[in-house]
């Protein structure tokens, strides 16, 4: 017996939708086996991870809070990835945005200058992320440097830069030497949506708007068409008159702006100050979200919520099952692996061949 991957005549629309679901199921099965090996009850583990958080209104809000930066970053990354442009450095752009927006919050701390502070911080955050993302884009367009490497390496530059600021010039004088800025003023903070109940904040609304705008951009506009053609058939894109270099700059700027915006929202929202731990890897996890969501804005929204669920579930599992938090990262890694593997089923189908050498007609 032999398994053969056979090219389909056309991409399968059914599998395109089903493939992430298959991947999720396979991941959960693998995960259950992993728990069984660790000597934990796999059924209970799956309940803790995936079901329990959904039964608690506070946990539901936490899921949305967690999903907010993931989805916003992933939407921007999807624009890059569809065009075959590989921005791996959203983490750095997230930090750059957080730092740029925080600059204003730190400068105006305790001055009560007015309500323009928060909007200006958001603009600065988006701008900072976009400019930071343009560095690898410019290096690629003008010097031919691989944007995969440069964007990734700039993550560490951003991280250390932020580290310097919060340990040095921006450190809270009353902060007992902890590496953190002073807590942001109310005028520099994002309001929660339900006063006093949970942490769901206005940034989630901005994420929903980003999802809708991206969906319209990709599906309805000539610029979205350009992004798709450059990715799908570069030579045809050139024949169509699209400039691939300009698109590298455009997609990097947009994805950087969204990552930067996510960064400042996170800092000015749930966290409330700048410290070295603001990101916890959102920029990298968003890569998984982008692919799990089929690089489709609405799919990304669903995928972001699902991944946020695993974060929240992982936190409670840490408490109730005494398993390490790293298990959540293992889960996300396995998930990305299965998603990419299942993607080949969109273009190929599996066929089982009986032995080739078996005679066709034994007797005539």
């Amino acid at each position: 017996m032999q398994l053969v991957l056979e090219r389909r005549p056309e991409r399968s629309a059914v599998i395109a939708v089903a493939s992430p679901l298959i991947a999720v199921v396979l991941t959960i099965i693998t995960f259950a086996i992993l728990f069984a090996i660790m000597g934990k009850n796999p059924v209970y583990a799956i309940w803790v991870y995936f079901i329990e958080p959904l039964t608690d209104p506070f946990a539901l809000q936490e899921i949305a809070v967690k999903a907010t930066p993931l989805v916003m970053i992933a939407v921007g990354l999807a624009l890059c990835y569809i065009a075959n442009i590989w921005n791996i450095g959203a983490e750095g752009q997230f930090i750059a945005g957080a730092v740029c927006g925080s600059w204003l919050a730190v400068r105006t701390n305790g001055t009560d200058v007015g309500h323009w502070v928060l909007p200006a911080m958001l603009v600065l955050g988006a701008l900072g992320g976009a400019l930071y993302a343009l560095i690898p884009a410019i290096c690629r367009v003008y010097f031919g440097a691989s944007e995969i490497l440069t964007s990734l390496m700039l993550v560490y530059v951003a991280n250390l830069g932020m580290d310097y600021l919060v340990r040095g010039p921006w450190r809270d004088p009353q902060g007992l030497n902890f590496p953190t800025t002073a807590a942001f003023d109310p005028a520099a903070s994002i309001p929660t949506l339900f006063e006093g109940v949970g942490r769901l904040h206005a940034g989630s609304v901005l994420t929903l708007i980003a999802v809708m705008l991206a969906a319209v951009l990709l599906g309805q506009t000539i610029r979205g068409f350009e992004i798709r053609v450059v990715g799908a058939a570069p030579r045809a894109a050139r024949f169509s008159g699209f400039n691939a270099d300009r698109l590298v700059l455009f997609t990097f700027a947009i994805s950087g702006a969204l990552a930067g915006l996510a960064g400042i929202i996170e800092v000015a929202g749930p966290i409330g100050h700048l410290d070295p731990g603001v990101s916890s890897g959102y920029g990298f996890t968003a890569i998984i979200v982008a692919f799990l969501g089929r690089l489709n804005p609405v799919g990304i929204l669903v995928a972001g919520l699902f991944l946020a669920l695993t974060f929240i579930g992982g936190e409670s599992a840490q408490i109730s099952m005494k398993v390490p938090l790293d298990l959540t990262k293992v889960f996300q890694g396995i998930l990305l692996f299965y998603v990419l593997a299942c993607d080949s089923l969109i273009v190929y189908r599996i066929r089982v061949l009986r032995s080739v050498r078996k005679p066709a007609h034994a007797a005539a």
Partner: protein
Amino acid sequence: MLDASSQAGSSLSAPLLSAVSISKRYGDFLANDCIDLDLFPDEIPALLGENGAGKSTLVKVMYGLIQPSGGELRWMGEKVVLSGPSEARGLGIGMVFQHFSLFENLTVAENVALGLPPTESFAAISARLAETARVYGLPLDPKREVWRLSVGERQRIEIVRALMQNPKLLILDEPTAVLTPQEADQLFIVLERLKSEGRTILYISHKLEEVKRLCDTATILRLGKKVATCNPRQETAASLARMMVGAEIDEVKAAAKHSVTVPRLLIHKLSLEPDDPHGTRLKEVSLEVRGGEIVGIAGVAGNGQDELFAALSGERLSPSDGNIVIDGRAAGLLNVNDRRRMGAAFVPEERLGHGCAPRMKLSENALLTGHAASGMVKRGFINKLATLAHVDRTTKSFDVRKAKRDPEAVSLSGGNLQKFVVGREILREPGVLVVSQPTWGVDAGAAAVIRQALVDLAGRGSAVLVISQDLDELAEIADRIAVMFHGKLSAPLEAAQATRERLGLLMGGADPGAHNGEQEAKYAVGA
């Protein structure tokens, strides 16, 4: 039926290789449907059929590249299972593919050595290569890098490589597609000689005149089935075509009386360095295409046609504004969309990946070249109804056959996709149309539709420039024909004076100025 035919095979004089009821299924598609074929020694049998008829699939089965879904192969009467090309070569089967597999940066000898088992020293291989090439009159310098060679010379490498294994059966897939008429004549002499040595040559082609001239028998495939076996010398080209296509082919009708008007496309002393290190430099190319006429550019592939197309379409910009003039306006520095807005349209050679995004829908592919110069985009938003309407109009006017209203480009057959790609441009009524290899790899029915559309477009007053390797095609539709060689373009010849001999000489690099009567040696070209 099945059993009878497979038993009858062995009763006649012994065939070298028999395909017995070979079937090959790809998913729902039956590429080969119970095909029987016997190849006898000392023969040049032909395998005839349109693109997609199943010729390539069948010979790939015979060469061990793919496994049949049903049926079997018999080599000198014995059943064999070929699990790979090396087993086929071991039996004595050689093959020369239409698309060469050569490393451009390696020398001839290095390329040949790579394909042989590593039991022989490189020096010995080089010597044997030179000897084989000499014996068969296929001149080759073992030390030359492949990228310096013409397409004809590259084909020689493939043939010599196959001959060095001393095959009893040599399979040639469309060998003359890339040759000048004179080069093809030389190839036929070699093939006759191989036949006289007792080798069998399976000759795959859709060029009927060649088959009539060279081959002893012809097996005709249509839609994966064997439809006839005949002696091609006793058939006419028309009767062979009928068997291949299964229907009459319309002849291209000249457009109604029309006059040739002012120049609408002007190429003026265009010199251009190639993008890619193995590309061809364009040298002072000049040409004038007037409204109402079709000008053809002939030439062997790789002589600068791709570079010229890119310069005309605006995918590459010219050194100066005046190098290309469209309808009286300098366009050399304008991009492809600006040129489209001036009423120019372009059809590149490669349908999939260049003219179309393969995995995008037809409506999106209509947008691909239509977004600049039609009502398909308003304020940055796509008017999807307009793109679909363009697909529907193209479908109707050009008889594009497809499974649904708006499928992905890649799911169409070559002929239907080409009709779409050409029709997409012609329906915009361009004043200037530049089209490269308009019927490359397209079935005869679709080719006739496309050629007729080009003739009709010129008849309506447009200037049409056709870059083609197919001399028959140019003879059929072009008013004037120029030849491209090593990046230079000859002065165009009036169609009446553009004999195959004359074009062949120009394609081989003969001095374009010196075409006098005495130069016109007689070449035995079948007519």
